[in-house]
Structure formats: C-alpha cells, structure tokens
C-alpha cells in the first residue's frame, strides 16, 4: 500500500532519511529561485537599457530611408530577391530547470520549419544555447549549419551580439541563405514568456514616416560608405535585444519552476512528516500494548 507517496510499513529510519533528503532538495531549489530572481532583475535592467539604442537606430534608419532607396541599395536591405533558403537562428538557454521555456521556443521554431518545408523551401539552422541544440538535433540534424554555446560568454553584451551578427551577415553575403529569422522568447511577465519570431535579414521593414518629419540629411562621409556599418549595427542591436529578452525570460521561467519545486518539496515534507509521526505513534502504541499485555500475563 502506498500512502502519501511513502510505503505504509517503511521503517522510521528510511522515512527520516527521505525527509532529510527532500529538505536538502528544498534548500537547493529555494537557493536557485533566489539566484534566478536576482539575475532576473539584472536581466530586466539590461533589456530596458538596450532599448533606447535599438529604438533610436530604427528611427534613424527610417529617417534616411529616402536616401537609401535608389540604385545602390545594399544587399542587406534588398536581399537576394529569392526566399528559397531560410536561415533559422534559435536562442534557447544553456541550462535546464526552467520549465517548458526552451520547449516552447523550439516548438514555435519547428512549426515555422514545417510550414516552410511544406512550401518547398530549404532550411538551415543555427542554435545559440545548448538546450535548443539538444532538442533539435534528433529531428533536424541534416539542417544544422552551426551551434554556439552560451556558456562561452560570462555575460551577454553588445560585443557578443556583434560577433553573432557578423557571422550571420558574412554567411548571408556568401549566399548561404536568402532570409534570416530569429526565434526567441519575449519576456512579458514573470508568469508569461511568449515565443516569437523576428525577421532580421534582408534588413528592415521600413515603416512609412511622414514626409514633413523626414529631414534632408547631409552625410559625412558619403552614405554609401557608412550604410554597411549602420545596417550591421542595427542587426547587432536586434540580436542583443533578442538575447537579453531571452535571458530575462529564462530567469523568470527558472524562478517560477524553482518556486513550484520548493512548494512541492514543502508539501512532500509535510506528508512524509505526517506518515512518520503516525508510524512512530503506532509503534509506541504497539509497544505500550505489549508491555501492558506482558504485565497482565504476570
């Protein structure tokens, strides 16, 4: 018979050992929850700090749109003119213990991959973060172009985002793919992270800016000389924001998962303690009955 997860007639010692073990696990999950909470706060601050740069860069590109349009539109904007090969960059975490955080991102990427494959397109994949690679390599091994572990970096910063963007842009220029889409999790709240996709190449969905708001720029040096760098920085900042959003989501998911685990451990301790006390009481009662019966027999 099983009662409250513990065999009824299990020895008191094994119950005591089990309670000690669950208490140790609870301490561990509590500590992990607190670490995730502290990291979540820092990650949220980093995301908020990165957005002004991203926003200003987007506005700047919109303002110079009129001057970009012309004969010499760079490849990063015009694209290859095809949509045959899709390059999917999937950001996940390196470590688990964060609930279904990674599974959601990978599922959303898989849906996208299946839809494109049904349309007869080719897919190439890059994963950033160990978990995405672990899940996807079973089904999509032949599509993998590259995998990057996040643990190589102590912290996610612009330098790292630039390193990734240069890799992607170089591959784009070499003609390895026609469209690049990022998959990551957008942090909405501690309880909710939404997996999203974001097309980064060919660059820029220029939204229309009102004619009167559009300044007539002079450029120093010529726009053609700085456009490449400007677009590359724009891709870098988009990647940085995606990485930071993903990190924030990961920390929130881990905090919630560890909170659930701590609560579950608490409930288990309560149940095991109750079983332990019941058994202890029953053993004492049995011993008393035996003593009384022995005394009566005398």
């Amino acid at each position, binding site marked *: 018979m099983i009662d409250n997860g513990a065999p009824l007639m299990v020895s008191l010692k094994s119950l005591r050992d089990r309670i000690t073990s669950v208490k140790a696990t609870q301490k561990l999950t509590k500590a992990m929850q607190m670490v995730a909470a502290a990291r979540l706060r820092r990650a949220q601050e*980093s995301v908020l700090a990165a957005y002004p740069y991203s926003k200003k860069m987007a506005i700047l590109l919109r303002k110079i749109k009129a001057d970009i349009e012309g004969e010499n539109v760079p490849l990063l904007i015009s694209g290859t003119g095809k949509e045959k090969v899709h390059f999917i960059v999937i950001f996940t975490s390196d470590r688990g213990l964060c609930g279904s955080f990674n599974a959601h991102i990978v599922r959303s990427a898989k849906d996208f991959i299946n839809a494109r494959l049904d349309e007869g397109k080719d897919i190439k994949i890059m994963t950033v973060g160990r978990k995405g690679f672990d899940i996807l390599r079973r089904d999509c091994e032949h599509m993998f172009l590259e995998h990057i572990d996040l643990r*190589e970096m102590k912290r996610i*910063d612009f330098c790292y985002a630039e390193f990734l963007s240069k890799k992607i842009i170089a591959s784009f220029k070499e003609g390895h793919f026609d469209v690049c889409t990022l998959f990551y999790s957008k942090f909405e709240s501690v309880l909710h992270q939404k997996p999203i996709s974001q097309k980064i190449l060919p660059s820029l969905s220029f939204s229309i800016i009102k004619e009167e708001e559009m300044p007539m720029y002079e450029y*120093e*040096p010529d726009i053609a000389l700085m456009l490449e760098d400007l677009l590359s920085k724009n891709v870098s900042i988009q990647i940085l924001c995606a990485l930071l959003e993903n990190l924030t989501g990961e920390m929130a998911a881990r905090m919630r998962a560890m909170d659930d685990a701590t609560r579950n451990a608490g409930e288990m301790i309560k149940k095991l303690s109750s079983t332990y006390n019941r058994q202890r009481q029953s053993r004492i009662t049995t011993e008393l009955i035996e003593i009384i019966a022995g005394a009566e027999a005398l």
Partner: protein
Amino acid sequence: MRESFHFDLVTPNRILLSKAVAEVIVPGANGYLTVLAGHSPMLIRVIPGFLHVRFFGEAEQIFVILDGFFDITTGDCSLLSDSVISLSNFDEIESYIAAAHAALGSAPTDEIRNKAEECFSYLKSVLKEKNLVNFSLF
C-alpha cells in the same frame, strides 16, 4: 544668448547623457565638427577621438569615443555608440581599461579579442596624451 538643444548620448548598455546642451564637438570622419542649436540635419560617422559636450552654466564633459553615428536633426541630436567612456569618471576609465585588459587574455573569439585590443591601445594612447591616469596600469 545662444540657444540650447537636446542631446542624447546612447550606448547599448545605457543612456550616458540626455539633457539640454550648448554645443557638442564631435570627431567626424572629416575632422572635428562643432554642433550648435539649429545645425542643419546631418548624419556623421564618428571616428576615434574626444567628444566634448558643453553646457550653459555647467562644467564641460569629455568622453573618449571609438566609433558611432551622430544624428543631427533640428532641435535634437543623438550619438549612438557602443564604445564610449566619460573622462570625468576615473573609476570608470580604470575599470574599462581593466576590462579591456582582461578581455585580451580571456577573449573566446578573435572578434572580441580584436575589439579589446583596439579599445585598449586607443585608451592607452589618448590617456597618455591627456596625462590622465596612473601609468602603472600599462
């Protein structure tokens, strides 16, 4: 009396400065350029050098800048840069140098190592030139 205009100095990590200023001197691709209120719209590719920001009734602030884009529009200017530090904050300079130094040794990729090397050697030269920091750091 000269007019003031709004200036934002933005990096991917934070907004370093966002206030009304009197003038900004920026190291552009064709040399240093002084920007005053009412300057015609311009987009400048910033090259390594010193960025001077002058205020009305406040001390000037100087920054070391390695690259970026200076966007001048009517009544509003923004400088977007990923490599900029303030010369008024000695702790920041020292920690920046220390970080660049550490990155040189432990950079996981050539890209990051090159960036750190570039950063370190430029800081070294400009700070020596300005005689600002403890040379034992080098």
